[in-house]
């Protein structure tokens, strides 16, 4: 019984030490995120990729304001593929 009491005491001190260290460690991590990382985020923000209309320009130039044949072909291809895919289940029914 004494040995069990001893073990309970050891478990109690282990729990106390364990929970204190877990909270302290993760608490320090909060501090790290809110200070170091937050400062880094302000100093080095993500680069926003410039929006380029290179492909559109190219196509527009080619057709002088009209929609290029390549885009028309791509759209009609996609539409027909979509119709095929969505028509099959109905046909089966």
């Amino acid at each position, binding site marked *: 019984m004494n040995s*069990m009491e001893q*073990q*309970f005491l*050891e*478990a*109690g001190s*282990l*729990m106390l*030490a*364990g*929970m204190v*260290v*877990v*909270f*302290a*460690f*993760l*608490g*320090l*991590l*909060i501090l*790290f*995120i*809110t200070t*170091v*990382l937050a400062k*880094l*985020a302000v100093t*080095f*923000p*993500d680069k926003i990729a410039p929006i380029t209309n290179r492909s559109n320009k190219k196509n527009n130039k080619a057709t002088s304001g009209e929609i290029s044949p390549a885009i028309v072909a791509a759209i009609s291809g996609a539409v027909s593929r979509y119709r095929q895919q969505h028509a099959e289940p109905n046909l089966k029914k």
Partner: protein
Amino acid sequence: MESLNKLWLSTGLANFELGQVIMMLVGCGLLYLAIARSFEPLLLLPMGFGAVLTNIPVAGFSEVGGFLSYVYHGGIETGIFPLIIFMGVGAMTDFGALIANPKTLLLGAAAQTGIFATLFGAIALNAVPGIEFTLREASAIAIIGGADGPTAIFLATKLAPELLGAIAVAAYSYMALVPIIQPPIMRALTTLDERKIEMAQLRSVTKIEKIIFPLGVLMMTIFFLPAATPLVGMFCLGNLMRESGVVDRLSSTAQNELINITTILLGLGVGSKLSAEAFLNIETLGILGLGAVAFSIGTASGVLMAKLMNKLSKVPINPLIGAAGVSAVPMAARVANKVGLEANPHNFLLMHAMGPNVAGVLGSAVAAGILLALVG
């Protein structure tokens, strides 16, 4: 006639022992859970099959020189497999939600109460005749409350290798049962109004923050808890490979091929420990029972901590996300989201719950490091 007799003696039928048959049935039970019920199939399937293989009479899979014996000694006893898996988990983890809302780290810390409270349960079980857990064994059992398979296996091999089979089975079984164990506890500890709380949208996190985060975690572990560096270090390596964006091939390998190969071998190796003499005893029942207690206490502590934070914080916090602090990524976060949606169909808590969920992974690795440092 002598040849026939010799042949008969070399068959499985002539050599089967009752314990082996029972353990094969246990293995088949794990296969059933994996295949029919989809309970952690990635690990329970190879583990169940490993249990069947190791109990085949005469074949000697787990005896010296046997295939499973090499797998166990080479990969599990050395701690290599759990660490490789931890690297893969790191490569799959996005810390964005945690960095956006760092307070959720406290939820991951609170949920570790389950681990340390279970120590008492394991020692209390010593009052039962036939059970005698030392503090090392109690610590290895308690880590089941961390709901983290690789961490549980890593610690069990270091502190109580003789209990590895039962601990691994309990850890993965309860992780699979998260959607069943957690919701009643979450509902019992929260009011409907609390479950309806909608949380503010998370800020966007920059690339530099995500790159520096794993390095910062590693530095802190080196300074304050070097015993946890094997687990945390491999986790951070995987995460840095993911976030740096310069080693996509390595990151992809860690997330896919490497973790898959290791999972197969880890499952087989753990299954090889499911022998009759190691598993069929009253201690296993105790371990299975303690696992459920550990999980429940961890869930409850997380929810109660979130309730407290909601009371003290100016920004509303839905207490349900506290339950995700028990690791079990991403299942626990999904459960928090599901229970939240039941109360408020417009409340999507998944991203908010991912913060405490990944904090739980770190928390359980830190707890394992503490147990190793103090008991190991």
